[in-house]
């Protein structure tokens, strides 16, 4: 039995790598994907391109603009001279925010009178807009507070309300104190990259034999269905394993993603995760008759699996029915595990529930697929 499986595995490797380009593809595309994802997927909002329309041209107005700029969140690209230009820049998408400071800004501030600032935000990208508004509010608020304190201390009225006790709130961010989105995303990208490579390879390899007609040849050999299944999945499991190793290496050494937990937990968890992925690949191969169908079905599974995994969109914000659906998504569990290992330093005691769930899921999927696969052969 082992001899036959061994021969099947050798045959499969010859098949995959007969086309020399596949060597490059199997090992280069995951790394390429990680690099693109790592750099492109950033939700950090900084350097929002901004236009300033300063009608006041005073020390105070320039100081406020300077503070916006030095915060690092706003990049003042244009100083404009009329209202019309403001509209034009926003329409063309050259700026995402525009700030207008009125003529009497400084004089009102000096007289401790309330004044206002107009700000226009391009809401097309609602996430950036929300964060930009929040930053602007905070920076302007701090500046206003300072001026007020200064004014009050000059007028020396100790009963002024702003000198009464208030509340100081200190905030701290754990696990990722710099709030870098890359630290959160890159470990997750390892998981999704492997999923796609493994799914495509597994599902297409089986269907290919059927499409070209070599499946019949395999059937007449003494190879048993179970051996065929093992022979068809083990090579891709090995390739995927190697890819995980490669991509993790790039994540750690190229992107400087910290690993706070035990890296030794990774191989074990990867193995559990691959069980489900291979199972799904095998399942797709039992539905598809052509490689075209296999590829489309793979994407039909892969895209929702990624979107509904908590990779970019938190699961708790989804409608309840969908949240329920995510329990059958292997990526969901693996993301918690891999992020836990990388960012939080979680050990077995924290992760065993996720691992257990993933294992159960993997065993069920692979059993169902194997049964279907066997039935199709007979």
């Amino acid at each position: 039995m082992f001899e036959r499986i061994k021969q099947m595995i050798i045959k499969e490797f010859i098949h995959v790598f007969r086309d020399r380009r596949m060597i490059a593809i199997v090992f280069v595309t995951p790394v390429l994907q990680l690099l693109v994802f790592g750099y492109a997927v950033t939700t950090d909002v900084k350097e929002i391109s901004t236009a300033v329309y300063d009608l006041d041209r005073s020390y105070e107005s320039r100081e406020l603009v300077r503070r916006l700029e030095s915060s690092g969140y706003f990049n003042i690209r244009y100083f404009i001279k009329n209202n019309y230009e403001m509209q034009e820049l926003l329409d063309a998408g050259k700026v995402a925010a525009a700030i207008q400071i009125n003529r009497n800004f400084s004089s009102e501030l000096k007289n401790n009178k309330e004044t206002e600032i107009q700000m226009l935000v391009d809401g097309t990208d609602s996430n950036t807009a929300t964060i930009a508004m929040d930053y602007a509010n905070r920076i302007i608020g701090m500046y206003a507070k300072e001026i007020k304190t200064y004014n009050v201390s000059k007028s020396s009225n100790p009963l002024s309300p702003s000198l009464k006790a208030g509340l100081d709130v200190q905030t701290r961010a754990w696990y990722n104190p710099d709030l870098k989105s890359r630290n959160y995303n890159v470990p997750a990208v390892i998981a999704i990259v492997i999923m796609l490579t493994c799914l495509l390879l597994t599902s297409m390899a089986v269907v290919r034999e059927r499409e070209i007609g070599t499946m019949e040849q395999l059937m007449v050999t003494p190879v048993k269905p179970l051996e065929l299944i093992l022979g068809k999945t083990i090579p891709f499991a090995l390739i995927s394993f190697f890819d995980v190793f490669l991509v993790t290496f790039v994540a750690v050494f190229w992107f400087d993603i910290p690993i706070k937990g035990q890296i030794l937990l990774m191989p074990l968890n990867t193995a559990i995760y691959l069980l489900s992925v291979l199972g799904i690949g095998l399942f797709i191969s039992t539905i598809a008759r052509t490689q075209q169908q296999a590829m489309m079905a793979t994407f039909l599974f892969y895209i929702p699996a990624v979107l509904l995994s908590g990779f970019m969109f938190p699961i708790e914000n989804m409608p309840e029915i969908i949240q329920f659906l995510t329990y059958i998504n292997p990526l969901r569990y693996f993301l918690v595990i891999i992020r836990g290992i990388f960012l939080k330093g979680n050990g077995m005691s924290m992760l065993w529930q996720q691992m257990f769930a993933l294992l159960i899921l993997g065993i069920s999927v692979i059993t169902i697929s194997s049964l279907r696969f066997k039935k199709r052969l007979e």
Partner: protein
Amino acid sequence: MRVSRIKAITKKELIQIGRDPLSLAMAFIMPVMLLLIFGYAITLDVNNIRTVVYDSDNSSLSREFVNEFKRSGYFTIVNNITDNRDIDKYLDSGMAQVAIVIPEDFSRKLKGSKNGDAMIIVDGSDSNTATIALGYISAISEIYSQKTKGIKITPLIEPRIRVWYNSELKSRNFIIPGLIAVIMAVIAALLTSLTVAREWERGTMEQLISTPVKSPELITGKLIPYFMIGFIDVLMSVFMAVFLFEVPLKGNFFLLMGLSSIFLFGGLSLGILISIVAKSQLVASQISMVATFLPAFLLSGFMYAISNMPAALQTVTYIIPARYFVSILKGIFLKGSSLKLLTFETFLLMLFGVTVFAIANRKFKKRIA
């Protein structure tokens, strides 16, 4: 180029597509599924932040402070804990994303003349949620602070912020127009990238070559049926966007369809080119994923702002047609842009399509020879 030959190839391709109803069905299910997921299931808006409270003061003032968080609607209090070691447990396991820690002397300080203090710990691993949560926290603290002082202090400078184009700041309005570009890139990648490779693999290419069909005729003939499928997908997506998700379409519908056709032509040509170069379906599927799907999804500005990417990657985005198409879609949908504003993007899309078509044509000729 003879029209009759193109027609013949188109007819052959249509028959082949008709024989594979499963793939055809998936080509129509894909956009519907993507739109439904993006429209209903996922959102970038942050609410229901799981929060754990460690209140060692337990006074009416501290409870009021916690209530302020509850009332905001952004925070859900999962538990009140009495042991501060539990904070670690809650955050480590992800049962809570935010911990509010209130010290014993919270109310005493507030009643006196000193500033009261509280500490709030945020799980920073999801930096986007954390950043937005921090914004909410500072706003809520400010409101509470003013309330306890008993006087509503109007700030000296009042920022009057207005949002243009998508004034309700719905992430749906921002994502769905761009999604149409992604859908088309996926369709182009999935449908066309295997068409020529399949003929090679099955050995039917030799039969085609022996006919008098010339390469531009063959490529055009193969493009037309997929163009039709892609066009129906665009129509479906636009109708779903407008009527189901109520994304405002401020610009001209016909302009939208016209520019979509140009993009579709480029995308499908790229699919064919990949198919010609790859020769095997396995190789083609992998290349098309990296060359069409990933860039359309990640580097087009559909969800992730290009201006936030490192300079080198920003340069790469200039050769990605989806980038131009996403700004066209967002422009027409949300800003009501006219063709005049979009001339540059339109020109580049055309250039891309024609160039890729020409390269595909040349590569195919070489293959035959």
